[in-house]
């Protein structure tokens, strides 16, 4: 152990002596380097060298040229170079001082130190050698590099700026530093021939002197360049010092016995090994192969195929899953050589080209090629496939039930109209005479006379079969006659007609009217006057207007046959007689509270049954058998019991605006016509909703009417100028539903101002009907 350091020391000494003989300067430089650890300022030069040579000139050479850089680098050294002597001396002095300061140190190092080192080698506690450096005396001059000599203070500018001057810069005191004398060309030539010691061919930037480097410095530069440790003597790989040796100590640090685990194989390691073994067995760890080979192998590996459906078991398809529809198979027009009729004509082709590609019905035009070799590639095939792909994954699928049935099977099987005869089919008589619209028609209960009322304010009576006008009266000059209705009994021949707010009751002259019948009729009408004069009429409240004023219409009208005038509060549109003929009801839709009035003929009495009505009253009708009264407002039909004075039923046809209403002679069925083009059949026993809805007219329905004489017929009249005749058989059995068959559409009336047929009436016995049209005619159909 001890012999090695000694040898080293010896070697060092030899080297020292060499260097000493070489040059003193080397020591000085070396000195500075080793001091670097303690003194940074001194270290700068060597640091600069280190930077410039070992690495690229990145840190400093970025701004200056390479040469200048070198100059600058080297120039840094110059102060130390120059001051070497001083420095040396100083250090020596310091060393001596140190010697004095440390008396207990071996003389041997001192001796070495005297030989030119600034450190001593001492033995440390373990016998190893240890470098001990001198203490630096921190006096003012000790570490002052400024005072070392004339430093050129021109700063960081190239020296070439001073080429034309005799000086090369200024020292710290502002004195010119003169350019050192340079020999002439010959001299310089001579210089190149015999190279002085330490010549580098470089010039110190600061001083302009040639830059000389000593052997030591060059050596140092070389070592730094090679990346070696600058200190030659430093041993980076010293022998290991066996602090804890295998040698048995007499006094061990711990007397604990060796633990058992030292002798047992490690479980953790076994686990790790097993992990690897398993990985190898499973093939997760493979023997190494170069990556190229592995890649190639992987490429060669085929996709493994096997029988995927080996254990297939048919499962019921998920009901929510909708399989994608298949594309339709190609038709004839897709052939490359289709039959010629599939080829488009010139117009078709043009039209196809004109339409937007998105709007085209077919995405291609059929084309014909004479032979297969002429068929080109289909341009949009990829796009079509792509669209199919998009459809497959992006289109929402909806299951649509395509009804693959004959549309005619939807139609109900209707019996042939020929089986359902009789019903009116052709126009028999046209009654002309009214100016403007014929508003209303009515056939008298005996079936011989026809009464019509028109917009011209006249009421006319005609012979039904011949069409001859037998009687006429003008009721009003400004108001139209809205409605005419015969009193439904045969014991009298009384006609009610409305014009404006007035209801007139009259006895027209007619061939069928015998004097006795005429007299009887007049008596019926006159009876009321006696009743009124007898004062049995209830007195109305003094301030209140009576519901209806019964009066004689005046001599002129009385002469014509018009015997009674009843004036109500607003214009009367509808008159309906009770079957016995003693009562009749009027409807004046604008009349609000008093829109519905019931008049008693025998008493000349007018009553307003409803205080309030839900909606505008449209029409009213008396039940043919029971004391029931139907009032149709715009939306609903209400049925009231007149005896008990209560609401019995509300029928809801579902129409928006009811125009007309009629009740079957049996009393259990109702038909409702509406302005929203519907004809509704109600079975009153079954439901409040319609039993059947029929839409045959493109325009509003104005009137509906049952045949009252025992024939299973009904008809409606519409604004489209047609009448529709239906066969409507009401069965005797309550449980059976009525048979309704449309049998005939009667056309003939002209449409004037969007109004077609306005009113309709049936003959009391025969399957004949009369219609009133806006074209100023009434027609008899049979």
């Amino acid at each position: 152990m001890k012999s090695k350091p000694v040898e080293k020391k010896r070697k060092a000494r030899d080297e020292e002596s060499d260097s000493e003989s070489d040059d003193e300067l080397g020591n000085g430089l070396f000195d500075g380097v080793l001091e670097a650890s303690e003194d940074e300022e001194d270290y700068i030069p060597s640091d600069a060298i280190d930077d410039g040579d070992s690495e690229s000139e990145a840190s400093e050479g970025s701004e200056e040229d390479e040469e200048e850089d070198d100059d600058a680098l080297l120039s840094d050294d110059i102060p130390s170079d120059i001051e070497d002597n001083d420095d040396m001396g100083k250090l020596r002095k310091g060393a001596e001082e140190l010697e004095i300061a440390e008396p207990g140190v071996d003389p041997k190092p001192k001796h070495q130190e005297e030989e030119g080192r600034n450190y001593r080698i001492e033995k440390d506690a373990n016998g190893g050698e240890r470098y001990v450096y001198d203490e630096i005396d921190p006096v003012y001059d000790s570490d002052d590099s400024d005072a070392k000599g004339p430093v050129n203070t021109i700063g960081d500018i190239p020296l070439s700026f001073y080429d034309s001057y005799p000086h090369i810069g200024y020292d710290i005191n502002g004195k010119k530093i003169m350019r050192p004398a340079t020999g002439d060309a010959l001299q310089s030539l001579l210089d190149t021939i015999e190279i002085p010691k330490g010549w580098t061919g470089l010039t110190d930037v600061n001083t302009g002197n040639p830059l000389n480097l000593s052997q030591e410095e060059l050596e140092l530069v070389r070592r730094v360049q090679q990346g070696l440790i600058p200190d030659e003597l430093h041993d980076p790989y010293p022998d290991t010092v066996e602090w804890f040796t295998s040698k048995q100590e007499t006094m061990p640090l711990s007397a604990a016995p060796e633990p058992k685990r030292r002798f047992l194989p490690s479980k953790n390691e076994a686990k790790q090994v097993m992990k690897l073994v398993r990985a190898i067995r499973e093939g997760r760890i493979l023997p190494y192969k170069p990556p190229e080979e592995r890649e190639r192998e992987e490429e060669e590996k085929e996709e493994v195929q096997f029988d995927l459906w080996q254990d297939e078991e048919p499962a019921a398809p998920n009901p929510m899953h909708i399989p994608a529809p298949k594309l339709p198979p190609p038709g004839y027009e897709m052939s490359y050589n289709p039959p010629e009729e599939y080829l488009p004509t010139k117009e078709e082709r043009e039209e196809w080209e004109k339409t937007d590609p998105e709007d085209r019905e077919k995405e291609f035009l059929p084309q014909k090629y004479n032979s297969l070799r002429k068929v080109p590639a289909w341009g949009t095939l990829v796009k079509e496939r792509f669209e199919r792909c998009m459809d497959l994954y992006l289109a929402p699928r909806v299951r649509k039930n395509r009804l693959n049935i004959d549309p005619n099977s939807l139609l109900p099987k209707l019996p042939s109209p020929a089986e359902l005869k009789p019903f009116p089919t052709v126009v028999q008589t046209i009654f002309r005479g009214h100016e403007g619209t014929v508003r209303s028609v009515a056939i008298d209960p005996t079936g011989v006379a026809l009464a019509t009322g028109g917009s011209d304010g006249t009421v006319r009576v005609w012979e039904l079969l011949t069409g001859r006008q037998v009687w006429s009266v003008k009721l009003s000059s400004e108001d139209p006659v809205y409605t005419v209705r015969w009193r439904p009994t045969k014991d009298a021949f009384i006609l009610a007609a409305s014009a404006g707010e007035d209801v007139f009751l009259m006895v027209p002259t007619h061939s069928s009217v015998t004097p006795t019948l005429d007299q009887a009729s007049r008596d019926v009408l006159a009876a009321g006057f006696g009743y009124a004069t007898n004062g049995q009429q209830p007195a109305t409240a003094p301030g209140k207007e009576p519901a209806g004023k019964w009066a004689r219409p005046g001599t002129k009208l009385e002469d014509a046959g018009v015997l009674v005038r009843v004036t109500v509060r607003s214009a009367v549109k509808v008159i309906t007689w009770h079957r016995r003929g003693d009562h009749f009801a009027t409807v004046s839709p604008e009349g609000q509270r008093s829109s519905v009035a019931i008049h008693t003929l025998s008493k000349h009495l007018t009553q307003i049954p409803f205080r309030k009505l839900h909606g505008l009253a449209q029409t009213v009708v008396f039940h043919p058998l029971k004391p029931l009264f139907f009032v149709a407002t715009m939306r609903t039909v209400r049925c009231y019991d007149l005896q008990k004075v209560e609401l019995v039923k509300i029928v809801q046809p579902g129409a928006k605006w009811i125009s007309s209403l009629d009740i079957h002679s049996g009393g259990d069925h109702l038909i409702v016509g509406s302005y929203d083009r519907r004809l509704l059949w109600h079975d009153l026993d079954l439901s409040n909703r319609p039993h059947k809805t029929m839409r045959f007219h493109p325009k509003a329905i104005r009137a509906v009417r049952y045949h009252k004489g025992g024939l299973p017929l009904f008809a409606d009249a519409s604004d489209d100028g047609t009448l529709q005749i239906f066969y409507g058989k009401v069965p005797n059995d309550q449980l059976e539903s009525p048979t309704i068959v449309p049998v005939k559409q009667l056309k003939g009336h002209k449409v004037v101002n969007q109004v077609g047929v306005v009113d309709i009436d049936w003959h009391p016995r025969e399957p004949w009907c009369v219609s009133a049209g806006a074209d100023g005619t009434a027609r008899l159909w049979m």
Partner: protein
Amino acid sequence: MAKIKKKGQSGQAKNYITRTQAVKKLQISLPDFRKLCIWKGIYPREPRSRKKVSKSATASTTFYYTKDIQYLQHEPLLQKFREQKVLEKKISRALGRGDVGDAARLERNAGRPDQTGKPRYTLHHVIRERYPTFIDAIRDLDDCLSMLFLFANLPSTTAVPAKMIARCERLCHEFQHYLITSHSLRKSFLSIKGIYYQANIQGEDVLWLVPYKFNQRVVGDIDFRIMGTFVEFYMTLLGFVNYRLYSSIGLKYPPKFDQTKDEKGAELAALTLEGVNLATNEETTKAITNGEGHGPDPKVQAEVDKLVKKLRTETNGDKVDEEMAEGEDEDEEKATDAIDKFEPAAPGGDVLPQPTYSGNDPSKLFANCTFFLSRETPRQSLEFILRAFGCKRIGWDSILGEGSFTTDESDPSITHQIVDRPIIQAATTEEGDGEDNQTAQKLGPNQRYPGRIYVQPQWVWDCVNDEELKSPELYAPGAALPPHLSPFVKPMQGQYDPTIPLEEQQTEGEALEAEIEDAKVEAESEEEDSEVENDMDVADDNDDDEEEDSDAEEEKEDEEDEDEDEDEEVLQRQRELEAEISGKAVKSKQVDPKLKAKLDKKKELERKKKEEAEDLERAKGMLSKKKRKLFEQMQYTNKKKSTEDMKLRSKRRRLEKEKAAGKA
């Protein structure tokens, strides 16, 4: 009291989920979601009421069933996607760090299927899930085959790697081989889009489209990533289907693939089918040898020799063999000949389709023919279709690729030659000096080998679709071909059918109209005749008259059952009007009866039509609103169809007339 229900907590609002919500729920990117949907067969659903499902939904919002998305959540592929995502992140991070080596290592693990055609995941569990039985898979094969055949014909680009194309091609060839061996191809159709094929596999009809062999143009914005995803799935599907099909007919899958042959363009012949049984491999190896291939098999030869010795009478052993084989065939046919006809024993039952009897088995349609394909014919499709219908020997020019029975056009065994070149008027110099080495002698243009049938390619397709060898005269080279009709159209009652003569399918009214027109034209021409060349063609005139008379008689017979209550006056008036228009004097009565009768008939028809319309109107009024709408809709479509048909009929009538005029 029942709990108050909150809106959006139950019912439709819970059953549906928007796409964005679904993507968020699955925590994958949109492209990955798309992939997953494509593979798993999840598609959007249209809710009954969009408003109830989501208030903020616009028209373009796509909804999925929540249950579908829940089902996706358990998908093992999802984990793969996530792993891939993590890997991508690692790669990008490594690249960001400038760690190129690490990135390259990770990239190697990435295994991009869109570039290599080789994914790290397998899809077979998805296929098994989507198609629980094999038949289900067959049923869905239409799109798969069309797609793969298209991709097999695409040029390779960055979006479509060459490997993917090669694999598609391989799978398609394998499938074609199955069809050839099992003879399950049924129909084929040359359309303008490509060639449609229909095969019957285990009772399921599969229809697919193969493009013509041209470079496919890619137009418009096509996202090949989507197509690629589909193709990836379809490739796996077809692989497994092929395996199953091959094993069902006792063949080994995958068949042996000959790289060198494939490179020479052998296509189908590059694959060699092998039997499953390894012990009898030698015998079962069924290479598409094109008949002779490697010369006589020694074993067969030995047997033949034996036979020859035994019989000693015949000079040619092969002949005996053939005869024997034929005899056997006949016997077999006799055995299977009797097909029962199902006659209804009692009236009233539904009529079922009869078991069709076709005299020629599709697998033997071309069995006795040897074909030679000229250079200009589409070899791939012809080879496939001929082989699928029993042809064993097909030769073609060596330009068309490897694998032909013979490249020698002058081979005497050739019975049919398929040509698609026009007949050249002037004899030009021989073309193709480069191919002289294989054909010893070349024929000049328009020259033919005797004893051979020359046909155009359409003949093959028409034969296949009609299941009989059509007469080749119609399909001779240069001849105007008869129209090629789609075999997939099922004739429907009342629909226009080009195969049926016009008279059998036109409506009464149309026929009448046409006749009237004819008559008018005739009458006019007659008039002209009589006016201009009165004295020239007397005999002709007489002839015409006779014809007309006979016509008129026939028509009278037809009309016998019709009621004769027409009024003369109207007719007369019409006649007068016509005369007025044509600027001639009112015609004498001699032509009248015919025209008159026809006009009467027309009138009668019109009257009937009117009555029917009235009846219809009456019945329609009795329908409810819903039913009436439906009825009107149906009538609309029916009417549209019938007008289309009418247009076709009228076009055909005109064409026929033109043709007749051209002939006369």
